[in-house]
């Protein structure tokens, strides 16, 4: 058999389906179910990865494979998939994460043996992976929407997988509601496109915006922005993210944060760059602004968290913001007629998409390993884990460095490209609008710095110093398959950082499709070792060179030490403990304490709630008990969602009067409606 992308994609889709079926078949045999389901999804994802790579390496000239899954019973409905460069890029992302997470799950799901049904977990995981793959490869609106809905349902089931916890149930319902608001917007948007095109195929929707009246086009754009924005988790539509990610099983959180929210980006990129045609200025400005706000607020709220997985969820919001900054800038450049710069910004956004998938997947997997070992998500109860789980700590550190955008890892490359696009954007137009570029550039800089601070906290409080609780003291290293899963993603972080120029070349067919430009030649210098930003003047960087330089610098301190300190004596003594008897975990820096300065600086935004209760007998200086309570509540939760909820409930109570409870009244409703309609028809 010939291994073409089409065949590999078909194999991958079938594999997921078989995995899902197998999980249900082996409900009673958890070990077999675990091995079968996650084995199947790992192999399917591998096949999908191969399909995407083969197609992308084939370059712009490769023909798009397209085939029907099974014959459709109804007209219009075609269960057919294709690979065009944009699909292939997202298939690459989905499958890459799929492989690593499936392997990790082989070990992680063992934690559920005897407690929860692993067969169900495996089946749902496969269903989610299948639906996500279909979302990014569907070649028509129907299949896209069907897969979109299956994806939302599977994710809902997985979020409330541990449904014995009230928290998981609530998060599930919240996700369910948000997912359906998002589905409504997306469906309406596609219906508007369909009205103009008269066909549901993606191929015939290409550049359809040109045929639509401007008002409708703008309405469609806004619908898509809200719909895909909810899925991606942009502020202020993000509230499901910090609720749903922490309570889901960690492999699922990794998949949701790494892949699921990226389908929102896929949808947006598909619609904004492929379907809607030449964008007016305000589209790009809106997207750039929304992205900037998401990035800054995401990281600020992340800093306030001491639940490890919630912290990571807020970072997803931040990174989605950074991705949207790239895409928004690209839309502005398309408007101002700078296709090259638009391509640069697009490459930056998409590069950050895959980077975020990789390092956030890695971090969630690491958090899962920590959770598995300590049975808590609260960072204040962790500490000292680096001694007990050194490999997990190493992988988590790699992820943390990558997300903090430190060279030479992948986060650095894409954020650097985003900066370049933003900074060069200042010169492209003379309107006052151009001020938005340096402003969002500055915000991006702030975001990166705060993200770095946040991960100093996350890594330091979790892994360093002494264990703060019994659980943390008894932690153990994760299972080998879990380590392998994390290792794969850590490797991907390093590879995407070091071989950025080579990766940008893979994006060529994609940019050719969306903006008609190919950038890899202009972006690479010195035979692909150095990444430049179109003009030599604005900057070049080589992650390979940076790491080589770093490696060369390593021996220097040793050499200096050898030269100057050879003769001094080494004395080992106890850590200074301020005269106390010994150091205890109670003296450690807490996560709340670490983030206090930032909480104070951004007091106006956070409005922290603090409460001190002191009980004393005769003098306030000799307190018997002291209680301190401090928490930060989200502005959006208070100002937007709570009033909305109250209003909806009030309206629902009114409507309930209709539900009289008497069959006759219901029958009368039907009867009355019928007669009324007939009367209207007759007159």
């Amino acid at each position, binding site marked *: 058999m010939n291994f073409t992308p089409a065949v590999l994609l078909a194999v991958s889709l079938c594999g997921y389906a078989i995995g899902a079926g197998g999980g249900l078949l082996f409900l009673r045999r958890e070990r077999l179910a675990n091995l079968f389901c996650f084995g199947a999804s790992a192999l399917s994802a591998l096949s999908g990865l191969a399909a995407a790579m083969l197609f992308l390496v084939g370059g712009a000239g490769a023909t798009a494979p397209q085939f029907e899954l099974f014959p459709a019973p109804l007209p219009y409905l075609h269960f057919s998939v294709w690979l065009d460069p944009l699909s292939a890029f997202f298939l690459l992302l989905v499958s890459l994460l799929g492989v690593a997470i499936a392997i990790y799950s082989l070990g992680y799901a063992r934690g559920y043996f005897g407690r929860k049904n692993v067969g169900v977990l495996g089946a749902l995981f496969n269903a989610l992976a299948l639906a996500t793959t279909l979302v990014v490869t569907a070649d028509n609106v129907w299949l896209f929407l069907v897969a979109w809905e299956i994806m939302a349902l599977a994710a809902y089931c997985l979020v409330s997988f541990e449904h014995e916890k009230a928290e998981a149930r609530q998060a599930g319902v919240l996700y369910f509601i948000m997912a359906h608001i998002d589905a409504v917007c997306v469906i309406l948007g596609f219906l508007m496109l369909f009205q103009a095109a008269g066909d549901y195929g993606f191929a015939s929707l290409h550049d359809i915006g040109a045929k639509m009246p401007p008002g409708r086009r703008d309405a469609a754009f806004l619908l898509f922005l809200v719909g895909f924005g909810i899925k991606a988790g942009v502020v202020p539509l993000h509230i499901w993210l910090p609720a749903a990610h922490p309570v889901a099983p960690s492999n699922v959180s990794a998949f949701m944060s790494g892949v699921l929210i990226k389908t929102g980006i896929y949808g947006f990129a598909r619609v904004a760059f492929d379907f809607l045609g030449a964008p007016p200025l305000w589209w790009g400005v809106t997207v750039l602004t929304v992205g900037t706000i998401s990035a800054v607020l995401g990281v600020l709220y992340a800093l306030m968290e001491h639940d490890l997985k919630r912290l990571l969820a807020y970072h997803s919001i931040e990174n989605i913001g950074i991705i949207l900054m790239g895409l928004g800038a690209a839309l502005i450049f398309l408007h101002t007629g700078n296709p090259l710069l638009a391509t640069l910004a697009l490459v930056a956004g998409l590069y950050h998409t895959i980077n975020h998938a990789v390092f956030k997947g890695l971090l969630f997997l690491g958090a899962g390993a920590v959770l598995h070992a300590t049975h808590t998500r609260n960072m204040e109860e962790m500490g000292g884990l680096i001694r007990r789980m050194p490999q997990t700590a190493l992988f988590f550190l790699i992820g943390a460095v990558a997300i903090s955008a430190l060279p030479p890892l992948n986060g650095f490359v894409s954020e650097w490209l985003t900066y370049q696009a933003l900074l060069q954007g200042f010169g492209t137009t003379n309107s006052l609008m151009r001020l938005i570029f340096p402003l969002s550039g500055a915000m991006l800089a702030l975001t990166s710095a705060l993200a770095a601070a946040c991960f100093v906290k996350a890594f330091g409080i979790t892994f360093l110093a002494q264990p703060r609780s019994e659980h943390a003291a008894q932690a153990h290293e994760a299972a080998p398959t879990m380590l392998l899963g994390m290792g794969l993603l850590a490797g991907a972080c390093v590879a995407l950082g070091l071989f950025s120029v080579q990766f940008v070349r893979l994006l060529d067919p994609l940019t050719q499709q969306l903006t008609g430009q190919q950038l890899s030649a202009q972006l690479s210098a010195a035979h692909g070792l150095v990444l430049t930003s179109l003009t030599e003047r604005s900057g070049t960087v080589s992650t390979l060179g940076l790491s080589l330089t770093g490696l060369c610098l390593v021996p220097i301190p040793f050499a200096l030490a050898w030269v100057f300190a050879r003769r001094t004596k080494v004395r080992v003594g106890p850590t200074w403990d301020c005269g106390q008897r010994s150091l205890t975990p109670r003296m450690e820096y807490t996560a709340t304490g670490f983030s206090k300065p930032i909480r104070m600086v951004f007091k106006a935004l956070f409005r922290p709630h603090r409460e001190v209760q002191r009980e004393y007998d005769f003098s306030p200086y000799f307190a018997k008990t002291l209680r301190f309570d401090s928490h930060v509540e989200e502005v959006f939760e208070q100002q937007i969602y709570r009033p909305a909820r109250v209003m909806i409930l009030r309206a629902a109570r009114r409507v309930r009067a209709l*539900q009289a*409870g*008497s069959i*006759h009244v219901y*029958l*009368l409703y039907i*009867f009355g409606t*019928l007669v009324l309609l007939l*009367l209207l028809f*007759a007159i």
Partner: protein
Amino acid sequence: MNPPATEVASRLITLLATLMLVFQLLLVVQQMLIANIRLFALQSLLLTGIATVVACAYGAWHVLIVAVLTLLGKVIFLPWLLQRLVRRIKIEQEIHPFVNMPASMLICGALTVLSYVVARPFTSLARLGSNTLPVALALLLTGLFLMSNRRKAITQVLALLTTENGMMLAAIALTTYGMPLVVEIGIFFDVVVAVMVLGILVFRIRESFDSMDVSKLNELKW
């Protein structure tokens, strides 16, 4: 097919359909439960007659299967089932509708007029029995009215069945040439199953509430 034969058939169908409507009106005014069931059986028999006429006169032989099914199901089986149910749960025979008899008659008359008005644009287009569509509509509407006017679950089942008769009439007399047999058989079995389920429900309601009055079901509302 010689023209006089279709002419006769058309008139016959109109006659039978009108008789169905008459039986429907009788159902509205009849106060005894058993008599109600028998009226329904007779109405179904008329429907069987219409189906047979359509089948013979127009050579649409698959309609004959519908006729046989109607005969077996609605004329024999369902009335027998309902009568047995009535005897087994030993309820009082008299029906107490919400709206009294003369008012019901007036309402049904109004509904019939309405259906004639609504169906006017189509009557000239109909290929046979130009009166059948309004009659079918009238059956449907009065059936619905019956359903909301009756207290006891079993009389509501009967009303549902007459509504269904109206739909069958429309299907057979107007569109059957286009409507596949499978659909009709599907509808038919739907009805049979629905009646079975409702029969069991009636039993349960009787057990739980010691009455068949569905008005008492609102005690279930929280």
